[in-house]
C-alpha cells in the first residue's frame, strides 16, 4: 500500500456518508415531522400512535433500538457532512487564513452535536 500525509479520507468518508443520509432520509423526515404532522395531514387523534414516536417511548423493544440507531446514524453523519462543507464554504467565501483552526472548530461542533444526539436518544428520550 501507500502512505498519505493526511486524515482527509476519514473526514471525507463521513462527509460522503452524510451526503447519502441527507439525500436519502432527511427529505422524508422533514416531510413527516416538519410538515405533515404539524400541518395536520396525519389524521391520528393522538400523535404518539405514529410508529416512530411510539417506538421511542418503548425503551425495552428491538424497534426502539433500531429507530434510535437509525436516527443517530442519519443525524451524526449529517453533522459531519455539514462540518466538512462548512469548512470549505468559509474558504470559498474568502476566509483563507487559519484553515486548521476552522477545521477544528467545525469538526468539534459536529462531534458535540453528535454526542448531544446520542445522549438525547439513548439516555433522555
Amino acid at each position, binding site marked *: 500500500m501507500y502512505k498519505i500525509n493526511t486524515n482527509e479520507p476519514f473526514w471525507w468518508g463521513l462527509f460522503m456518508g452524510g451526503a447519502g443520509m441527507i*439525500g436519502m432520509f432527511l427529505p422524508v423526515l422533514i416531510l413527516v415531522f416538519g410538515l405533515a404532522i404539524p400541518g395536520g395531514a396525519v389524521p391520528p387523534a393522538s400523535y404518539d400512535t405514529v410508529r416512530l414516536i411510539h417506538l421511542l417511548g418503548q425503551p425495552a423493544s428491538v424497534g426502539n433500538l433500531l429507530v434510535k440507531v437509525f436516527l443517530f446514524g442519519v443525524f451524526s453523519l449529517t453533522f459531519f457532512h455539514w462540518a466538512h*462543507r462548512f469548512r470549505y464554504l468559509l474558504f470559498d467565501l474568502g476566509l483563507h487564513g487559519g484553515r486548521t483552526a476552522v477545521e477544528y472548530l467545525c469538526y468539534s461542533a459536529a462531534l458535540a452535536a453528535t454526542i448531544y444526539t446520542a445522549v438525547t436518544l439513548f439516555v433522555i428520550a
Partner: protein
Amino acid sequence: MHAPLAPGYRPALSNGWWLSNRRYFLYMVRELTAVFAALWAIIFVTQLPQITAGAYSNPASLVSSPLWFAFSLVSLAFVLYHAWTAFNATGTLIYLRMGPKPIAGGSLNAAMFIAWALATFVIAFVFVTPAIGG
C-alpha cells in the same frame, strides 16, 4: 528551465467570484444545503424528548408552531436540492464496468433516485402508520 522569471502580475480572485456565473452560484447553493440540513437535524434532536412526550398535540410547542413548519419547508427545499445534486453525481463518483462496457453514469444516477423513492415510501409508511390501534 528558464532564465529568471520576468516580473508579471497575478490577478486576484474576488470573494464574490461565485456570483460571476450561474454554475458557480448553484455550487454555492449546493454547499449551503448542508447548513439547513444540519440546523433542521439539531433542532429536531433538541425537540425529541418533548415529541415523545406529546409535543405534537400541544399547540404551544415548537414543533407545532408555524415557525417550525416554515423552517421545515425551506429546509426541505434545500435538502431536496442536495439530494438532486448528490444523486446526479453518482455516475461521476462511481465507475463500474462489468463486461465490455462501463455502466452509464445516467443509469447509476437513476438507480439512486429509484432507491430514494423506495426509501422514502418505506420510511413514510413505517413512521406514519399508526403502530397501535387506528
